[in-house]
């Protein structure tokens, strides 16, 4: 016994017949293995990015210096400034941010509704509609985008070869390509990028919720809508957060849909397009300055591209760190399951 009356660790260990020590050692071994594993895999993922980071801090001279591998000899913020310049500064960031948030919210809300409908209600033709959702998951965006573009350039309902209601009334269809709100409508209609996946995720989530929750709500006088809104939605927050996250990230790096909906002439306004055109942009610029036929050295264009990639990654990581909190917080609010 120690002075304050508590039994020491070894005392307790002796009383438990050595169980406590074995348990403690096992715990430490487990922790050690976990740390090694996590660290190793983190390094695997981070290594290419760390390399990008280190070359984004070098002067151009260091790129050709064989003795410089990871730590630059001459620090410089010049690559960052150059990449920032060719990414067209802050405007594409804000454009992408604004559109991404709206698109994310619309997609998550509509897909949550639809997922709940599929999970809980029985209605005629349910399997047919769900088959359509699966079709939407399987068919990649690249396949759909050309016919979609053709349709949206002269949109109408039903719209087969320029025949439809609008053509009957006004003689021409709506031009929806290059319009921001058109993409919002498409997203609200669960027809945006990867909407099928979000519907499926939400459906699986709601199917796994106990039915007693809703029954209790009905008994207490909720109708179908308030049951959904007040009882089931709070519990779905982690799932919704990850849907939002995916939606945002896929929008941020999307080069397919943004070309259809956000192209104004030859100007791409989103950050993904700015990044995609970064090297070309710089090449043209340098050619203008240095004279015809000048080619930017590969190492240099790689440097600027890496820097640009890092710059576009930062907002996503910030958003992830913010969003992952809601993975953790939600339990305390809805821990009634089971």
């Amino acid at each position, binding site marked *: 016994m120690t002075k304050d009356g508590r039994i020491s660790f070894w005392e307790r260990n002796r009383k438990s017949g050595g169980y406590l020590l074995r348990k403690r050692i096992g715990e430490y071994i487990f922790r050690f293995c976990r740390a090694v594993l996590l660290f190793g895999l983190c390094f695997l993922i981070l290594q290419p990015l760390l390399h990008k980071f280190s070359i984004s801090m070098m002067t151009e001279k260091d790129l050709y210096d064989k003795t410089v591998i990871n730590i630059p000899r001459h620090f410089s913020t010049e690559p960052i400034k150059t990449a920032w310049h060719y990414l067209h500064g802050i405007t594409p960031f804000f454009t992408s941010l604004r559109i991404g948030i709206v698109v994310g919210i619309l997609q998550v809300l509509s897909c949550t509704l639809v997922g709940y409908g599929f999970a809980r209600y029985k209605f005629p033709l349910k399997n047919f509609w769900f088959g359509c959702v699966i079709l939407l*998951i399987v068919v990649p965006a690249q396949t759909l985008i050309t016919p979609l573009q053709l349709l949206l350039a002269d949109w109408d309902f039903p719209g087969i070869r320029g025949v439809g209601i609008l053509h009957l009334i006004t003689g021409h269809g709506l031009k929806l390509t290059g319009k921001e709100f058109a993409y919002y409508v*498409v997203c609200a209609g669960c027809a945006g990028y990867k909407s099928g996946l979000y519907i499926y995720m939400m459906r699986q989530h709601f199917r796994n919720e106990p039915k007693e929750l809703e029954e209790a709500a009905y008994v207490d006088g909720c109708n179908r809508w308030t049951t959904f809104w007040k009882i089931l939605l709070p519990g779905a927050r982690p799932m919704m957060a990850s849907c939002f996250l995916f939606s945002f990230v896929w929008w941020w790096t999307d080069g397919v849909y943004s070309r259809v909906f956000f192209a104004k002439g030859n100007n791409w306004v989103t950050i993904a397009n700015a990044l995609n055109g970064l090297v070309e942009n710089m090449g043209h610029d340098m050619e203008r300055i240095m004279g015809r036929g000048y080619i930017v050295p590969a190492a240099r264009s790689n440097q600027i591209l890496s820097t640009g990639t890092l710059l576009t990654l930062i907002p996503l990581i910030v958003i992830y760190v913010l969003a992952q909190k809601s993975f953790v917080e939600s339990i305390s609010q809805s821990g009634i399951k089971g």
Partner: protein
Amino acid sequence: MAKAKRRDLARGNAIAGYMFILPFIIGFVLFLLIPLVSSLYMSFTEVDALGKQGFTYTWIGLKNYNEVFFINEKYVPNLLTQLKNMALFVPGILVFSFFMAVLLNQDFHGRTFVRAVYFLPVILSSGIMVGLETNNSLLSSMKDLIEADTSSVSITKTLESILLTGQSASKFFQYVIDLVNQVYDIAIASGIQIIIFLSGLQTISPSMYEAAKIEGCTAWESFWKITFPMISSMILVNMVYTIVDFCTKSNSDLMTLITNTLYMNFEYGLTAAMSWVYFVIIMGILGILSFILTRWVYYYD
């Protein structure tokens, strides 16, 4: 009386169900039905995209499908390799991501940081990020040089040859070594799955674990008796996603073949036929697997 009431309830439910899925129906009918149907229609036609009036379609029936299966010498072998790779990788990715999600769900120092790192693959494997470096033709030619230069000596290669020449050489070893060799690809490909599993794990109530612990459950038992059943619905999601993601990855031989048919030979009809054969096969696989797994997935209903 009671029967009529039940019928009313069923009808009310049917209407409510349709109200809930209404956004999808509207969006699907207005925007996706025509593209889907026209791409399917294209596969039965010969498309002349370079004509004066834009696209002109000539109906040629099943000729494109005939070419896909019996004439094109690359399609069927590529398809089979793709399916074999899928059978190899999808289980690996699922097990890896589930394992990582369970680890990341535990409490330890620096958890936010590690989770943020595991989120990076989601970004790096999406959209334009994939092709950024290979699009730059100069860089990609350099990359081959660099790879040839650095991959000459490695400990793992030696270890692999020792393991494979020993008596213990077996198919299973080959499988494990294949997976380990591809660990970077697997880690990159499982970012989404980890997040889906994580958010699934977060919806399991801690009180279940508490109750189990009081009843004398070990951690191992409560993993199999609580975590596993409660997460099983998300395993289905991840399986579907992994299969689709793996199959529609644009750098596989089959997808390259399909895109080349389109962009180099401008054979829209043939491309559409190739894609649809592929989609139908993937959907068939998904259907069979979901049918098998749904019996085993734990739902409350």
